[in-house]
C-alpha cells in the first residue's frame, strides 16, 4: 500500500458507461486520415485486376494450395471463360479438402502439437504420441472434411449425428470402428451417452479449450460464441465489482445475474455455458499416466483410462448445484446439446460468421475487416446453395474482390491484394511440383513423436516460423514475408530441389518426370536449357514467357553460374530450382 491511498474502492466514473458488457473505447489506430475538404475533383478510380491466367493460379492456390496444371493454364490462356469450370473442378479435389481442414484448424485452433498429448498407455502402448495427437486433434477436421466431401449442408458441422474415427480413436474413445487398417478414417458414433452435435461433441475440442476452477464452462461458451457466431465476449474490456467475494461461486452466481457490470455478458454467457456441463473440465495427460501406473485404472481412475470417459450425462444438470441458470441460447431454452447444435445451425449469425471466415481465409484478410455488405452478399449465395461450403468457396474465388489486386478511389470495398503463401500450401505446392514431402523423424528425446511433416508442425517443424499458427501461442497467421519464413523456405527449397533433380533425370520417360522434361543430365545446349526454363516458368509461376524473355535471360544466367561453378548441369538445375522455390512468385500469388 502506498501511504495516502484511501482504502475505499475506487470505481472510476467513466466505467459507469461500460455496463453494456464493458465495451471500452479503444484507441483509434486504424482510421485513415480525414479526406480533404476542399473542392478538388475526385481522383480517378484505380482498380487493378488479375489477368485470367494469374486469376487461375490464385484460385488454384487458394482452393487447393497447389499450382494449376499446364493444361489448365493453356485452356484459360486460350479462352478465359474456361476459368469458371476449371475452378469448379478444383472444389472437387482432395487438395480442396485439405484447404477446408486448414481453414477449420485456424478456426478451431486445434492443430496444437506443442501441447501435451495423452499418453501411450493401455491399448495405445507402442503408439507414437504424434499419431495419438493426429488422431485426436484431427477428428473434428476429418468430420468437416467428410461433410464437405459428401456435399452435406455446412450447417451439419454443428448438428451431424456422427463422428469420424480411426483405429487409434476407437481405442482411445471406445467408439465403433470398422476400418480395415488402423489409419483408416470411418464414420462412427459416440457411445458414451454424449449428444451428437457434429464437431461440438468432439473431445479434442474441449480438451483444447478446458474449463478451470470456478469458471464453470464460461470460457468454453465464449469459444462457442466467438468461433461459431463471431460474437466473442472476451474481447470486450471488463470491469469487476470488488465488493463481492469472487472466490465464492454462489456469490458469483448471484452477482452475474444482478450486477449491472456483469449482467450484460453473463445473462447470455452463463446459460450458454450450462449446455456444456456433460464434458469434463479438463483432462491433463498426467492423469492418464497416473490412472494406469498409480491407480491401476480402478475407482475414479477408470475415467482416465482408455477408453477415456470425457463425457458423463449425469453431470449435464450440475449447473443447478451452483445456482447457475439453465441451458439456453440467447434467451431460447435449450432441451439438449443436440438442440443447441440446431439452434446454432439455424442462427443467421452462424451463417454470416461462416461466410466471413471463408471470405477472410481465402483472401487473406482479417475477419473483422470484411465489410458487412460483403458478408451479406456472399451469405445470400451461401444460403441459396443450401449451405454448400464448396459453392461458398467457389463464389469467393470467382468474385471481383478475389481477382482485384489493388484498388484506389473505387472498386470493391475489400479485395485480396498479394497473397502470401501459407506453410501448409507451401508444403503441398512443393509436393505437387516435385513429389517431395519434407518429413523428418525428430527422435525420441522427450517422447517419440514420430514422423513429422515439417510444413504442418510446430513441435519440430516450421509452421509458425513460416507465418502459420500453432493453435495455442500463435493463434493468428502472419500474411507477409518474415525472416524466419525466408530461412525456412530456403531450406525447404534446397531439399525439394535436391530431391527432384536426380529423380527426374533417373526417370527415362520424360512424360513421367515432375519438372525436367526437356533436358537430360548432360544437356548443356543453350536452346534446350532455355526451352526448359520457359517450361519451368510456366509450370511453377504460371508465367507464359518466350525463350528470349528477359526473365528467362536471368534464369539462364543463374543456371550458367551454377554450371560454371560446379561443372555439373545437374547441380546447376538444383541451384536453379532452389531459387525458383523461394522466388517472389512463390512467396506471393
Amino acid at each position, binding site marked *: *500500500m*502506498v501511504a495516502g*491511498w*484511501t*482504502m475505499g*474502492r*475506487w470505481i*472510476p466514473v467513466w*466505467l459507469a458507461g461500460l455496463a453494456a458488457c464493458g465495451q*471500452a473505447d*479503444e*484507441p*483509434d*489506430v*486504424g482510421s*485513415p486520415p480525414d479526406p480533404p475538404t476542399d473542392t478538388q475533383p475526385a481522383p480517378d478510380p484505380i482498380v*487493378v485486376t488479375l489477368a485470367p491466367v494469374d486469376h487461375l493460379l490464385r484460385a488454384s492456390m487458394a482452393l487447393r494450395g497447389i499450382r494449376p496444371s499446364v493444361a489448365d493454364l493453356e485452356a484459360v490462356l486460350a479462352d478465359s471463360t474456361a476459368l469458371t469450370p476449371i475452378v469448379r473442378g478444383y472444389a472437387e479435389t482432395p487438395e480442396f479438402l485439405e484447404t477446408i481442414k486448414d481453414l477449420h484448424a485456424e478456426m478451431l485452433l486445434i492443430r496444437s502439437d506443442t501441447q501435451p498429448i495423452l499418453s501411450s498407455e493401455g491399448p495405445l502402448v507402442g503408439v507414437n504420441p504424434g499419431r495419438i495427437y493426429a488422431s485426436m486433434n484431427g477428428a473434428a477436421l476429418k468430420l468437416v472434411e467428410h461433410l464437405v466431401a459428401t456435399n452435406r449442408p455446412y450447417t451439419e458441422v454443428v448438428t451431424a449425428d456422427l463422428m469420424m474415427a480411426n483405429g487409434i480413436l476407437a481405442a482411445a474413445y471406445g467408439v465403433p470402428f470398422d476400418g480395415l487398417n488402423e489409419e483408416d478414417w470411418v464414420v462412427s458414433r459416440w457411445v458414451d451417452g454424449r449428444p451428437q452435435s457434429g464437431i461440438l461433441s468432439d473431445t479434442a475440442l474441449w480438451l483444447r479449450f478446458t474449463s*478451470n*476452477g*470456478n*469458471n464453470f464452462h464460461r470460457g468454453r461458451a465464449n469459444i462457442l460464441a466467438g468461433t461459431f457466431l463471431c460474437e466473442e465476449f472476451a*474481447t470486450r*474490456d*471488463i470491469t469487476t465489482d*470488488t465488493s463481492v467475494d469472487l*472466490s*465464492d*461461486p454462489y456469490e458469483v452466481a448471484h452477482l452475474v445475474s444482478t450486477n449491472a457490470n456483469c449482467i450484460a455478458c453473463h445473462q447470455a454467457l452463463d446459460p450458454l455455458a450450462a449446455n456444456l456441463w456433460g464434458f469434463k473440465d479438463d483432462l491433463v495427460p498426467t492423469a492418464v499416466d497416473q490412472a494406469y501406473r498409480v491407480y491401476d485404472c480402478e475407482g475414479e481412475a477408470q475415467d482416465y483410462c482408455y477408453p477415456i470417459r470425457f463425457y458423463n450425462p449425469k453431470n449435464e444438470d450440475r449447473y443447478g448445484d451452483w445456482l447457475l441458470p439453465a441451458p439456453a441460447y440467447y434467451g431460447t431454452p435449450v432441451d439438449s446439446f443436440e438442440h443447441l447444435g440446431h439452434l446454432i445451425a439455424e442462427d443467421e449469425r452462424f451463417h454470416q460468421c461462416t461466410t466471413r471466415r471463408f471470405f477472410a481465409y481465402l483472401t487473406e484478410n482479417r475477419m473483422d*475487416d470484411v465489410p458487412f455488405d460483403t458478408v451479406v452478399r456472399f451469405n445470400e449465395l451461401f444460403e441459396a446453395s443450401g449451405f454448400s461450403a464448396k459453392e461458398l468457396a467457389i463464389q469467393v474465388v470467382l468474385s471481383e474482390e478475389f481477382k482485384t*489486386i489493388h484498388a*484506389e478511389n473505387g472498386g470493391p470495398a475489400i*479485395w485480396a491484394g*498479394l497473397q502470401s503463401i501459407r506453410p501448409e500450401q507451401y508444403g503441398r505446392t512443393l509436393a505437387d511440383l516435385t513429389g*517431395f514431402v519434407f*518429413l*523428418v*523423424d525428430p*527422435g525420441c528425446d*522427450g517422447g517419440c513423436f514420430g514422423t513429422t511433416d*515439417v510444413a504442418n508442425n*510446430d513441435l519440430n517443424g*516450421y509452421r*509458425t*516460423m513460416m*507465418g502459420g499458427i500453432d493453435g495455442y*501461442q500463435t493463434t493468428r497467421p502472419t500474411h507477409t*514475408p*518474415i*525472416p*524466419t519464413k525466408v*530461412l525456412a523456405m*530456403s531450406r525447404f527449397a*534446397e531439399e525439394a530441389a*535436391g530431391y527432384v533433380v536426380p529423380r527426374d533425370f533417373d526417370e527415362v520417360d520424360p512424360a513421367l518426370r515432375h519438372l525436367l522434361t526437356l533436358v537430360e543430365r548432360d544437356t548443356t545446349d543453350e536452346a534446350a536449357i532455355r526451352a526448359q526454363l520457359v517450361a519451368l516458368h510456366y509450370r511453377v509461376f504460371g508465367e507464359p514467357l518466350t525463350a528470349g524473355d528477359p*526473365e528467362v535471360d536471368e534464369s539462364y544466367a*543463374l543456371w550458367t553460374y*551454377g554450371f560454371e561453378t560446379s561443372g555439373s548441369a545437374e547441380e546447376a538445375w538444383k541451384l536453379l530450382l*532452389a*531459387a525458383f522455390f523461394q522466388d517472389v512468385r512463390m512467396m*506471393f500469388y
Partner: protein
Amino acid sequence: MSGFNRRQMLLGGAAGVAAGAIPGRARSTPPKPTRLVIVRAGGGWDPTFCFEPRSTDACVDGPDLDLSADPNDEEYVKTIGGVEIQCNDYVHPTDESKSKRPNVTAFFEKWMSRTAIINGVWTGSIAHEPATIRMLTGTADTRNADFGAIVGSTYGNAMPLGYIDISGYSFTGPLASSSGQLGYKAQIRNLTDAVPTYVPPGSYVDLGIAYPLYLAPDPDKAAIQAYTRARTDRFRLLEGRGQGTNAVHVADLVASLDRAARFRGEAAEILTTLEVGRNPSLPSSAALAAELLHGNLCTSVLIDGRQPFDTHSGMPAQHGHYNGLFYGLSLLMDGLEAYDLVDSTMVVVVSEMTRTPKRNAEDGKDHWPHATVLAIGGGVAGGRKYGAYDCSLASLPVDLATGEAGPDLLKYDNLVAGILAGMGIDSEAWLPDVTPFTGFHA
C-alpha cells in the same frame, strides 16, 4: 484489404526515430535504454506472494496459509532498499518442491535499486489471451504490434532482427518482417547452422533418402538471393504489385531476405547455446537473451518465464513458480551486467493478470484483472513501488506522471505507452491519445 491503417502508415517513419532522431531531452536526463527484454510470467501471478505483502485477512488470502510446521518456514515482510516485499526464504532440506521463495529475496537484495514495482495495472480482461494482447500491445487488437516489436523496429533496423521471440507469444502485427521466432525446440538452428541435423523417417531411409538432399554453398546462396532480389524488383513494377499494401508486402520480402541472410551469418555461433530438439528453459532463455543483445543481433527479446502461474487450484504452487522465475531473472540480470548492458536495457516482467483476493474451494485463485508489472534496469527509477491496490487488490487511481495517488486508472494502454516513452519512443505514434504512464521513468 481496405487500405492502410495508421500504424502501417507510420512504418516508413518509425526507422527515423532510431539513433539520433530522438527528441531532445535535458542534459541531466540519463540516456534512454535502446534494448529491451520482456519476460512473460504467464498465467497470472499472485502479488500477495511478493509485491503486495499481505497476510490473510477479511479482504485477502495470503501466502501465510501455506506455512508448514517447520519453524524455518516463515512468511515475513522485508524492507529491501526501502521497499516492502513479502518474503519466505525457506529451503526444504530434501524436497525442493516444498521450498518457498528464497530466490525472490536474493533477487531484490541485489536489484531492488534498479527495479520499479508497478502495482494496480488494470488489464481490461480476465481471459488469458485477451489480457496478454492488451498488456503487450496496449490495445485489444492483435493487428497491433507489441512493445517488443516496436522497440525492435525502432532501434534494431541495423541488426539482423529487431525483435527475437524465444517464447512464441509475441504479437508482431505490421512489424513482422523485423521479428523472428526461434522455434519451439530451437528449430532455428537447422536454418542457420552450416549443416542441418534433422534426419529422415525410416520410410525415407528405406528409399535411400538422406538429408540434406542439397545444400547450396554460401556463394550459391548469395547468387540465389541476388536472383530473387532482381526478380522482386521487377515484380514490384508490375501493375498493382508495388502499390498500397502490396508495396508493404514486397518491401517486407526485401527486408526479410536481407535480415534472414544476415541472421544466418551472424547468429549461428550464438545459437549454439540452444539444443535442437529441446524447448529452451528459462535459464537458457535468459542467458541467450543477454547473448543476443550483446551480439547486436537484435534490440528486443521476449522470453517465457516457464512458470505456470495459473493456479486455479493449489495456490502453494505459486511459491515454486516465484522461486523459479526469480532464479531466471537473476541469471538474466547477471548476464546483462556481465556485458555492461544493464543501463542500456529495460527488462519488463509482465503477468497478464493476477489472481482473485480470496482462495476458492480448491485452494486456488481465479483470474483477476488488476496486474503487477516489473520494470528493471535502464531508464527505470528503481527502488520503489508505483500504483497501488485497495484492500481487495483492485487498482487504485494514480497520477500517471508520478505513480503517486491521483485521478487516473492506470490502464494497460497507459502502461505500454509508458514503456515506449521510457525507451525514447514517441508513444503517440503507436498509441494515439493514450497518456503514457511515466512515473517510473528515471
